[in-house]
Structure formats: structure tokens, C-alpha cells
């Protein structure tokens, strides 16, 4: 067993042990904090597919995160107020059911990723970073100034949405849902890395000409990766909105994109469990440093800086060593 596999096993163990401890010690807020970390990790796993596997540095993943959030907010607020979303040509009602919300979030953010990808993948390098940022800003400004769904104020949902057979208002049960999604998506990601598609994508990043020579189309592979990536981050957005029972344009801001990217980089780019380590570390450090000083972000900045400058391969890289 390699060190990375040991580390991964330890992380999975922590994902079960921390909430179990919190439940035993009656610390419900620890569970809320863990849920936040798990959802951030899920969003970052999504980005890691584009970033690590596809080499696509997207500084606009908040778009997908926010679309997922708004899918939840719009559907649930219509259900809450008993107003249909659309009456003509056919009736569409809101819903408080998580599975339907997830489906809509995944489809909507996947579609957005496809559209953005079609346009953005014509560029590369820094231009790709910046064009994804531009799409993010467009979505952000649109959401702030569009009054129908609350604009800057966002949308508030009084009661968390439901999942058949569970009481999602109990923190540990909602945590269970999020954790199940994270583990499922990690398994998918692992399968993807080893699949023919994953190998081709990896090759398209490193030696695009050779991939072209064997008859594959690198931009097409990248587009598929981006759609998958956006859909997963969108799912995380729907869960995040449900955690807070609230969605607002902040979820679409470029700082949000930056934070999702931070999770991936401090965890370790292209490492299966990098996003998990990164998101967990970030939530912990935000929580602990926040108690130390009013100026805690200085220390957060210093920690991030040290990780980039001296920690090759992020946290996973530092602990488990460089990849073979």
C-alpha cells in the first residue's frame, strides 16, 4: 500500500469518525462544519476533473456552483410560495424534493458548462483562465441585478428540502447525504482516471498532437471533461444552498471561483483525494484562525503562500510524496 493510499484511507476514516465523535459529544455544529467541508470537497472534485485531468484552469467554476444553488433556490421558493414556475405552454411546479432538485442542478450546470466550453475552448492558457472569469462575472452581475429571484438579497428557504425516508433537518442525516455523494463522485473520478477517456484526456493535455494523430479530437475530450466537471460542481452548489437554506449571487462571485481553486491546489492538483484534503484543511483553518485574531486572513494568506512556495503537489504531495 503506498503512502498516498494510506492517506486516502485516513481521510475516508476521518469523514466517518469526525461526525461520529460530534454525535457522541453532542456537538452539532461540528457536523455542520464537516458538512460544509464535504460540500466544498465535492465542488473541488468537480473542478479537479477539468483542472487535474483536463488541464483546464477554470477561474469561473462559481458559475456552476451558483447555478446549482439557484436551481435549488428557484424550485424550492416556488414550492414554498405555491406559485408555479411556468403555466404556459405547460405547467411546471416548484418542488421541495432533493432528488428532483439535484437532477435539475446537474442538467442546468452541465448545459451551462457545455455552452461556456464551446466558446471558451477556442482559447488556451491565460486566455482560458480569463474567459472563464469573464463568464463568471457576467453570471454574477446578471444575478445581482435581476430582481425576480431576489437579486443581491438572494433567496431564503425556510425549511431544508426533503429526501424520501430521511429527516434532512437533522444535521447528521444531511451530512450522510452529502458524504454519500462525495464518495460516489470520488469513485466515479477514480474510474474516470483509469478509463480510456481519462487516459486520452491526460494525453490530450500533455501531447495534443499525438492524440490528434490517432484520430481523437482534443477540444472535444476537453469539452466532455468540462461538462462533467461543471455538473458535479453544480450538484455541490445545490447541496451548499440546502445546507445554508439560502442562495445568493455571492455563490457566483469570482472569489468563490478562487476559493474552489484554492481547495484543489492546496490539496494537490490531479490527486484523487486532493480536493478532500484541501477543503477540509481550508474549513478547519478558517474556523481556528477566526478565533485567534480579527486579522485572521493575514495568517490564512501566509499559510496559503507557504503551501504554494514550499509544498510541491499540495498537502497530498507533501505527505505522500511526488507522483510516480
Amino acid at each position: 500500500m503506498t503512502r498516498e493510499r494510506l492517506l486516502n484511507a485516513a481521510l475516508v476514516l476521518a469523514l466517518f469518525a469526525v461526525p461520529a465523535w460530534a454525535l457522541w459529544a453532542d456537538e452539532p455544529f461540528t457536523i455542520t462544519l464537516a458538512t460544509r467541508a464535504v460540500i466544498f470537497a465535492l465542488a473541488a472534485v468537480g473542478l479537479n476533473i477539468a483542472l487535474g485531468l483536463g488541464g483546464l484552469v477554470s477561474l469561473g467554476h462559481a458559475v456552476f456552483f451558483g447555478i446549482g444553488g439557484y436551481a435549488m433556490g428557484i424550485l424550492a421558493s416556488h414550492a414554498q410560495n405555491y406559485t408555479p414556475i411556468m403555466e404556459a405552454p405547460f405547467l411546471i411546479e416548484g418542488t421541495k424534493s432533493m432528488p428532483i432538485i439535484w437532477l435539475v442542478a446537474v442538467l442546468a450546470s452541465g448545459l451551462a458548462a457545455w455552452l461556456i466550453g464551446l466558446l471558451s475552448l477556442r482559447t488556451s492558457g491565460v486566455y482560458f483562465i480569463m474567459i472563464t472569469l469573464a463568464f463568471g462575472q457576467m453570471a454574477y452581475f446578471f444575478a445581482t441585478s435581476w430582481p425576480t429571484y431576489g437579486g443581491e438579497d438572494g433567496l431564503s428557504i425556510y425549511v431544508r428540502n426533503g429526501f424520501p425516508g430521511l429527516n434532512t433537518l437533522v444535521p447528521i442525516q444531511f451530512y450522510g447525504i452529502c458524504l454519500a455523494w462525495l464518495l460516489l463522485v470520488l469513485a466515479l473520478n477514480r474510474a474516470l482516471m483509469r478509463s480510456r477517456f481519462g487516459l486520452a484526456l491526460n494525453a490530450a493535455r500533455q501531447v495534443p498532437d499525438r492524440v490528434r494523430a490517432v484520430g481523437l479530437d482534443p477540444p472535444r475530450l476537453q469539452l466532455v471533461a468540462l461538462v462533467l466537471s461543471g455538473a458535479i460542481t453544480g450538484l455541490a452548489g445545490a447541496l451548499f444552498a440546502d445546507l445554508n437554506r439560502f442562495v445568493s449571487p455571492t455563490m457566483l462571485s469570482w472569489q468563490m471561483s478562487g476559493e474552489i481553486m484554492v481547495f484543489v491546489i492546496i490539496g494537490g492538483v490531479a490527486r484523487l483525494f486532493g480536493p478532500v484534503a484541501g477543503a477540509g484543511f481550508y474549513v478547519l483553518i478558517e474556523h481556528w484562525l477566526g478565533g485567534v485574531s480579527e486579522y485572521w486572513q493575514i495568517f490564512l494568506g501566509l499559510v496559503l503562500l507557504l503551501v504554494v512556495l514550499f509544498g510541491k503537489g499540495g498537502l497530498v504531495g507533501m505527505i505522500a510524496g511526488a507522483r510516480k
Partner: protein
Amino acid sequence: MIRTTLLAAASLAATTAAMTAAAQAEVKVGVITTLSGGGASLGIDTRDGFMLGMEQAARDDIEIAIEDDQRKPDVAVQIADKMIQSDKVDILTGIVWSNLAMAVVPAATAQGKFYLSTNAAPAQLAGRGCNPNYFAVSYQNDNLHEAAGAYAKSEGFSNPFIMAPNYPAGQDSLAGFKRYYEGDLAGEVYTQLGQTDYAAEIAQIRASGADSIFFFLPGGMGISFVKQFADAGIDLPVMGPAFSFDQSMLPALGDAALGVKNGANWSKDLDNEANAAFVSAFEEKYDRLPSIYAAYGYDTANLMLSALEKAEPSDADAFRAALKEADFDSVRGDFKFDTNNHPIQDIYIREVVKEGDVLTNHLVSTVIEDRSSAYVDECKM
């Protein structure tokens, strides 16, 4: 997220004393406000005003937790969850911004907690979304804009140019102004949230033939506009809500703000005993003049204390009734709650003046007496 557990009475006492007091604490209060980033000055004044009231009361059975929301809704929600789930607070307060209040208040009141607003009071929470456990101590968001509208009407302005950022509070602002002004407009413009350059709008104002200007641009946006407007050499009366001309903003505005009329429900020269005591105590303790946010924070502390004299938050019905009586000496003079738990109070117009070298506001007149809010009839409770 700074977490300072301060005890009103024992704030100077040794740690051990504080710990014993904490063990006996019967009431826990959570203050969520903005202490870092660009909007921090408002949160700091809110906190300082609130803490001044708490310290004067010197009660050792109240525990206060203060945390920084970074002006991010999701962080505010997270802190509220923590305070409710982990610290088991009874009362929440302190949020400056409407979008953060919308994220926190509905969920907190749904869990049976009390929320006392020191500032933000969006239309939804005053109307259809009102809640018996939610009290706005400050105002209803539209009030100060309505004051400017009433003033414009009473001054006989016939062609004002009105402007606000394009977001819900901005749209409510212009609606509030028009509710009391009712006449023709030279122009109505929505700027971008966070906009820093107003050259285009100023050119429009110049060309519009307006006889006055009303604007609502909170924070740095207002500072930018006022400076640029002063540079443009347009000599027109300027009106706005108190936010852009408040004590925390005036030093950065400089003389460009002189003469501006602003709608407010508090001023440091408002003539009542409680206010005089508050202003001098605040100056004494913090070595600066109090802002309107500090006044709201102070009033909130005193309202809460007055209710705690009569009932425990654990007896929700009694505590709610005690809050509703508003049996405290407000720095704003007469103060009572309407049926939607928003204040009924006089609204004034202030003018920016210079006292020696210091820019501050003076009261000009009362423009609306006993103002409640436009949404009170929509509130069913």
C-alpha cells in the same frame, strides 16, 4: 470570525472571574456583524454601540459572543448555525446588510430564536415575511429614503434627479423616495453595485435640467460620487439617506459633503437626555463621535435589557411581550413598535456642517412624524 466572549460586567476582570460568571450566565446573546473587509467600519460601530449599552448595564448574567460575518451571506448563516446549535444563544443581533439578514433571520426565527435588527430591515421581513420573534430596532429600510422624498416635496423641488445601485435595496430606495415625493423626475438612473466612477451619471445630471439630486449609494460608492460631483461644479441641492453622510463616512468625504441634506431617524444633537448621555459616553470610551449605526446598536442593547428586566427569553411569550412594550429610553426620543415589530418614530432631515475642524450633522427639521412602514398591512401576525 473573531470570537470574543465578553461579559458585560466583567469585561475588565480576570479570566477566572469571567469563567465563573460564564458558568452562571443565564442569557446568551450572539452578535453577528461585519468586522473585516471593506464594510468593517459599519460593523465596528454597531458592535461598539451595542457593547457600550451592555457595559453600562453591568449585568453579569448575560454572555455575549461576537463574530465576524465578512459580509458574506454563507458565513453569516454558518455563524448563526454555530451560535444556535453550539453556543445555544437565545437572542441574535448585529447584522448590517439586508442580504445577510435575509439569509439568517428567517431560519433563526423559524427555530424559535429572537432576532433584534440593529440596521437592515428589508421590505420582505416587514411585510409578508414578518415574524413575532423578529424586531427591527433601527427602522424599515425605506424610511430614510421616504424622509428625503418628503423633504423634496416640502422644499418645493419639482424636478429631482434620482439614482441608486441596481439591487433590491436600491430599487426600494427610489420607490421609497417616490412614495413621499410624488412629482415629476428629471431622471431615474440605476448604477452598478460597487461602481466607483460616476462621470457618466454626472454628465446626465448636468444635461437633465434637474433642480435637485437624490441618491442612495452606500459605503465607498457614496464617497466616490460625492467627491466627483463636487468636482463637476454643478450647483444643485443634494439629498440622500443618512448612510452616505454618517459620522464614519464624513472624514473621507471632506468638505465636498458640506450642506448635503440627509434623511435620518437619529442625530447626535437630537435633544433628549438619553442621547446626550450616549454621545458623551461613546466619545469618552472610544474617542470618536458615534455614528448612526452605533446609536442603533446602543438602542438595541437597551431594548433587550429592558425586556430582560421583565422576562427570560426561555419564556418566549413573556419575553416577546416585554420587547414589544419597548420600555426603554431610546436615544431617538419617542419610540414604539407597530404591529409588524418595526418602529413608529419621527424621521428628520439633517445637514452636514462643520464644528470647528470636524465634519458632522445637525438636525434641520422633522419631516415625517410617527412614521411606521409601508408594508405594515401586509404583515399578518
